[in-house]
């Protein structure tokens, strides 16, 4: 059957028109033609009757089958998720930027999703209506015409990145930070532009954007071969999937582009980010299960030759449409009468910020659930004081209380922990296992190549105190390099092994993770750092039943001292919630690496901290004095919340702090008498003037209690700091205090949080002013970048700078943001 299958499928046996006629599939002209034939041809009449009879028999058969089939139904959790996503409605791919500019923006994205989107979009415009890609099936088996026509289009589009790269510096829409453009770094690594730039706002009038439009509109001929090579190398010419099977430079100019076009027309490419909306705490497991086992796999290269018809799959998952974010429900206000304690585990993840940056650099607002406030705030380096030399507590604890920029009348308490700095020479030995996802979905330029480059940067920091093993998981999950001591020769072997990695095959996540943990356990270093470093796009494909097992494995290993760090790579099908949760379970850190620059930050600057954990299971409990605080709210840390009794429970794990790491938590406080916003008075409790528990007389605002374990300890140590509100203002606060407040405001605005009671436009102005005033030395340029991103985000939210009132100008002057003589910025 297999041999004759194609023939059977392709060659009509008789006249298919008769079948189509019998099934009512012909248009009027064809129908008339067939009816004329039927009048004179008895065989044709018999044929039509037979077709109808067979069709009826088949319908009946299918109906019987359907009646007897056990068809599954969606689970309640799945329905709830769809329901809430439906309420959120479609996510605008780009706001406040016109289409032509949009085409430009996307080259910054991974090649695959980009091309898909652009072609789709373009076709839609040409057709003058929203066009379903499925309308235009491509890679047709028979017609030579379609692919040819399409290849011209793709050629045309393939020009865009090229145009873009020459015009980038002037093109306002272009993300002006090179690190967001991993695929382009080889071409133009140095791209800088002034921090005062307003990318999106200027886009519509910028000439280069127009030239992109004309490029779009002008028919382009074939690309010269060297251009095709370049584009292939950059990943633009291929579907973006596993490079192995895809033709590269194609003299005819048709082959590779057609692949791209086939890919491009996949209807999935049109799906913008699905924002999964609210969920309750109870749904978390369901959400996790769905995120972890998400079968939204990227098509692999290995099978492509065998099944060319499926090639389009390689691209479609590259769109943001398959990224999954766990919904975040912001914490509301609590009364210290009802809940005197706020308890949570620290979080040193920073992934959300790099991910948000990727969206903004692409000219998009991030999905609200991609914005995790604590990760934004903790992304930055703060120079809060560390512990006193010789102190028992491995961190310095600093609390600052100021006004709250997003809620006039409220106070903002900033609790900062700063881990002890440990000189590199004093760090302990380490046993590391790199667990690298080399499945086909990792083959994009912004994934495996970036991963390899980042891991090499990291490896170069290691020395004879460290051991490294490399485990990959893909079709061939296996030990690429057994645990090797990183002396000079060993380090070379690690680097060589990294160089030899290539993407391909499908992901067998569970097997790889198990192997990695085995290797880590087999080389366990007592008193040292034992850590699995998992690098992936998060597109795990573990079986349904493996999900909880995997989570258990990670959790148990963390208890025995093998921790997990998760590095997220690439875009399009990032399973953000999965990665974060795994790192969380594994006492680890989750970072998102969107560029080599970010790779350097995470792997070189922060890894010293990762290599030396100074405290684990770090928990914070803040007790509020009801006499001083009407209500409080923890900003961020939604998924780190702990019950008050968990604070003392040493079995409840929480985040680690590495050497030099800093962790900041912000509390929004309502002063007494202001009334807690959004909270009805309790129905079953007597009004507030009824007798309440007697208070200890104290003018203290709050007490921060900290609990942590030494890296090898099983029991915790505790310390506490009490704080008064000295009435400080942000304008007079330390730069770090200003800056973290600005970052939190940025996150709240991006989330569209209803906790923002200040005028939003004014808050943008204020936070930009705050951040700008607090840039300080900014050795790595992160703070300047933040100021720039804030401006982009504000533009994307459609909030242009406004005329300021006298009072506002006065405040900005107090912040040092504007000086006399300037009117407005």
């Amino acid at each position, binding site marked *: 059957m297999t041999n004759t299958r194609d023939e059977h*499928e392709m060659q009509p046996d008789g006249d298919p028109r008769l079948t189509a006629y019998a099934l009512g599939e012909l248009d009027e002209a064809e129908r008339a033609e067939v009816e004329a034939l039927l009048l004179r041809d008895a065989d044709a009449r018999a044929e039509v009757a037979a077709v109808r009879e067979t069709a009826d028999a088949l319908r009946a058969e299918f109906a019987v089958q359907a009646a007897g089939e056990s068809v599954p139904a969606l689970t309640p959790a799945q329905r709830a998720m*769809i329901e809430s*996503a439906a309420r959120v*409605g479609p996510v605008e791919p780009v706001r406040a930027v016109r289409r032509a500019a949009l085409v430009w923006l996307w080259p910054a994205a991974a090649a695959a999703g980009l091309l898909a989107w652009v072609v789709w979009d373009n076709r839609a415009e040409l057709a003058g209506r929203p066009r379903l890609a499925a309308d235009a099936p491509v890679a047709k088996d028979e017609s030579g015409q379609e692919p040819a026509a399409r290849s011209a289009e793709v050629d045309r589009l393939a020009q865009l990145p090229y145009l873009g790269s020459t015009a980038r510096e002037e093109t306002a829409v272009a993300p002006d930070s090179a690190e967001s453009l991993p695929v382009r770094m080889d071409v133009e690594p140095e791209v800088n532009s002034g921090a005062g730039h307003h990318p999106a706002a200027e886009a519509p009038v910028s000439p280069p954007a127009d030239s992109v439009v004309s490029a779009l509109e002008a028919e382009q001929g074939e690309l010269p071969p060297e251009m095709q090579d370049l584009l292939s190398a950059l990943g633009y010419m291929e579907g973006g999937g596993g490079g192995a099977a895809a033709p590269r430079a194609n003299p005819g100019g048709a082959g590779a582009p057609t692949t791209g076009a086939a890919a491009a027309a996949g209807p999935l490419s049109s799906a913008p980010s699905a924002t999964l909306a609210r969920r309750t705490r109870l749904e978390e497991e369901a959400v996790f299960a769905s995120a972890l086992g998400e079968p939204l796999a990227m098509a692999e290269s290995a099978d492509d030759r065998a099944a060319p018809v499926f090639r389009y799959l390689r691209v479609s998952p590259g769109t943001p449409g398959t990224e999954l974010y766990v919904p975040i429900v912001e914490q509301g206000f609590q009364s210290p009468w009802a809940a005197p304690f706020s308890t949570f585990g620290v979080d040193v993840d920073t992934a959300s910020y790099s991910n948000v940056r990727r969206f903004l650099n692409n000219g998009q607002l991030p999905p609200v659930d991609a914005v995790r406030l604590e990760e934004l705030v903790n992304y930055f380096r703060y120079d809060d004081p560390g512990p006193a030399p010789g102190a028992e507590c491995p961190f310095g604890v600093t609390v600052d209380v100021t006004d709250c920029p997003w809620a006039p009348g409220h106070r903002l308490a900033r609790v900062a922990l700063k881990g002890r700095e440990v000189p590199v020479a004093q760090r302990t030995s380490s046993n590391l296992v790199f667990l690298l996802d080399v499945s086909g979905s990792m083959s994009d330029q912004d994934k495996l190549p970036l991963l390899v480059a980042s891991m090499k940067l990291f490896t170069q920091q290691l020395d004879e105190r460290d051991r490294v093993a490399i485990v990959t998981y893909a079709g061939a999950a296996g030990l690429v390099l057994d645990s090797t001591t990183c002396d000079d020769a060993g380090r070379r072997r690690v680097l060589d092994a990294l160089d030899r990695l290539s993407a391909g095959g*499908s992901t067998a996540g569970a097997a790889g993770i198990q192997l990695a943990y085995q290797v880590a356990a087999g080389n366990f270093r007592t008193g040292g750092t034992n850590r699995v470093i998992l690098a992936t796009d998060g597109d795990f494909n573990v079986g349904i039943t493996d999900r909880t097992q995997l989570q258990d494995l990670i959790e148990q290993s963390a208890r025995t001292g093998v921790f997990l760090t998760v590095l997220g790579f690439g875009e399009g099908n990032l399973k953000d919630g999965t990665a974060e949760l795994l790192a969380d379970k594994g006492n680890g850190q989750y970072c998102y690496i969107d560029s080599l620059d970010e790779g350097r930050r995470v792997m070189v600057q922060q890894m010293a901290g990762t290599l030396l954990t100074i405290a684990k299971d770090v928990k914070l409990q803040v007790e509020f004095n009801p006499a001083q605080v009407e209500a409080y709210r923890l900003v961020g840390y939604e998924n780190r919340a702990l019950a008050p009794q968990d604070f003392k429970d040493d079995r409840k794990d929480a985040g680690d702090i590495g050497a030099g790491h800093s962790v900041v938590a912000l509390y929004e406080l309502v002063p007494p008498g202001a009334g807690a916003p959004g909270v009805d008075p309790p129905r079953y409790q007597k009004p507030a003037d009824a007798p309440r528990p007697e208070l200890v007389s104290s003018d203290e605002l709050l007490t921060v209690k900290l609990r942590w374990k030494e890296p090898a300890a099983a029991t915790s140590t505790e310390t506490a700091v009490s704080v008064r509100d000295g009435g400080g203002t942000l304008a007079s606060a330390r730069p770090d205090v200003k800056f973290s407040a600005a970052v939190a405001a940025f996150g709240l605005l991006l989330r569209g949080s209803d906790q923002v009671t200040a005028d939003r436009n004014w808050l943008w102005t204020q936070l930009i002013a705050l951040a700008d005033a607090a840039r300080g030395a900014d050795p790595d340029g992160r703070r300047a970048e933040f100021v720039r991103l804030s401006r982009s985000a504000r533009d994307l939210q459609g909030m242009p700078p406004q005329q300021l009132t006298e009072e506002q100008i006065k405040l900005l002057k107090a912040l040092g943001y504007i000086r006399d003589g300037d009117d407005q910025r």
Partner: protein
Amino acid sequence: MPEASPAEWVREAVAQYEAPLLRFSQRLLGDAEAARDVVQDTFLRLCAQPREAVDGHLAEWLFTVCRHRALDVLRKENRMNPTPLIHDAPDGARSAEPDPRAVSERREDAGRLRVALGTLPPRTQEVLRLRFQEGLSYKEIAGVMQLTVSHVGVLIHNGLKSLRARIEPRLAPGA
């Protein structure tokens, strides 16, 4: 979101297409759990669509997306071949006979028809199901399967022809 109630049309789509899509994806995947995930994802993607982008093509859009997701899963699990197109087909006719035109004599043919169906190439079976079980038009099937309309016509034509030949003599006097 031009609609007053953006959730409503999605809800209707779920009500109407949940079962067909689950049936469809379960047949492709052979696994209820995976089928659920795929269908859930299909609807989540639908939520992210502006309504006007799918209006008038809803069935085609849903089946297309659903099929892609299912194939992704298969691909990821490395089990592209053979596609278990017919799964857990019930082994006997049920008492409810939904098609009024089907008469008792059909029942004895039903077994033969089912066997015959199983011998067809997977793609042909899939096309036949989309046409005769889910009621999609040639054009919609072409969209879902990424084929041309005429190719779909040939697949259906040949498929019906083969079926007829296999359940001879009664149904195919001319063959």
